[in-house]
């Protein structure tokens, strides 16, 4: 009788532990699950926007068409415009992805699994910039904007101040 009782106790022991710590598990486990989902969610934005924007601050993510050869590794060229025609280096693997489909699972997987640099190209550098930012925020790195307007952010005119005709102050 006592052997049976002690065996029963041994089987119930894990349940006892669980019951004792149920409240701790009930709070810590969902938190752990949510954190894991958030951290490893392939299609979601990653934590800390600044970290994923860093290459944009110093222009290291911009590359001219002629300079793409300086990038190491197999390149994946993602063309965003349907209308783009041009001769790009044939050593790159080229895909055409409409910007509206850039966050689709298969496209994100393609970019994530690619081992070398990813080049985004559009005739509109503004569009490339927006798409770059969105993709970077999902945690994909080693991604560049390939542009024929590498001097886009250089001021090209000249401002001539006019100190002769002064403004009128009306009170």
């Amino acid at each position: 009788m006592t052997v049976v009782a002690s065996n029963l106790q041994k089987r119930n022991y894990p349940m006892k532990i669980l019951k004792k710590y149920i409240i701790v598990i009930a709070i810590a486990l969902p938190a752990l699950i949510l954190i894991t989902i958030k951290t490893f969610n392939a299609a979601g934005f990653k934590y800390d926007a600044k970290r994923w924007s860093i290459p944009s601050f110093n222009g290291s993510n911009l590359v001219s068409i002629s300079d793409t050869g300086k990038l190491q590794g197999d390149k994946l060229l993602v063309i965003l415009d349907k209308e783009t025609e041009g001769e790009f280096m044939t050593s790159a693997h080229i895909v055409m992805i409409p910007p509206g489909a850039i966050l689709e699972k298969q496209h994100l997987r393609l970019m994530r699994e690619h081992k070398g640099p990813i080049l985004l190209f559009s005739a509109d550098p503004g569009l490339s910039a927006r798409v770059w930012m969105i993709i970077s925020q999902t945690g994909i790195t080693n991604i560049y904007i390939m542009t024929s307007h590498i001097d886009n952010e250089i001021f090209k005119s000249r401002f001539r101040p006019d100190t002769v005709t002064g403004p009128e102050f009306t009170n």
Partner: protein
Amino acid sequence: MGPISSLITMPGWLEMLIALLIGTGFGFALEQAGFSSSRKLVGMFYGYDTTVLKVFFTAAIVALVGSQFLSYFGLLNLSQVYVNEYYAGASIIGGIIMGAGFIMGGYCPGTGLSALSIGKIDAVVFALGGFTGAFLFGETYPLIQNFANGSYKGAEKIDEALGISTGLFIFLLIVAAAGMFWIGELAEKKFARPDITGEI
């Protein structure tokens, strides 16, 4: 309600109402924890009652853990949470004055108001003393200005100063808090004053 209002735009009156409700909850919590009793409060100094340590530290840690989790999920904008600026000299002298006042008066500003709301006469006098002190500070400010604004260290956080990650700091703080509560319990046994603690 700055941090959450980056998610939902709330009208000003609603933000004020939420602040009012939070303040009410805080006062309620202070009173039901027994912090309107000056004997309970100074028990922290004499060692026979460490409730203050436990309640405030637990509140701080719950807020810390909660806010970090919310921030991780993008529900709270932590950069909008105000971090007090650290003036080293002023903090030390102010801390000494405040500590002395706390022990002598038996209240700190928040608990003083909590005691005032239940009609305690010593809390009325304490509050008057507090307003007088603030008034005197204002009047003498030109004389102490240089000292008050000296040794400015900026809005410094401990984890930044120590060079450890925020998450690690939080964990160490929680472990330290658990240790302090345990030491506090030992102190309560050692410095027990049955005549006072029985009354509270």
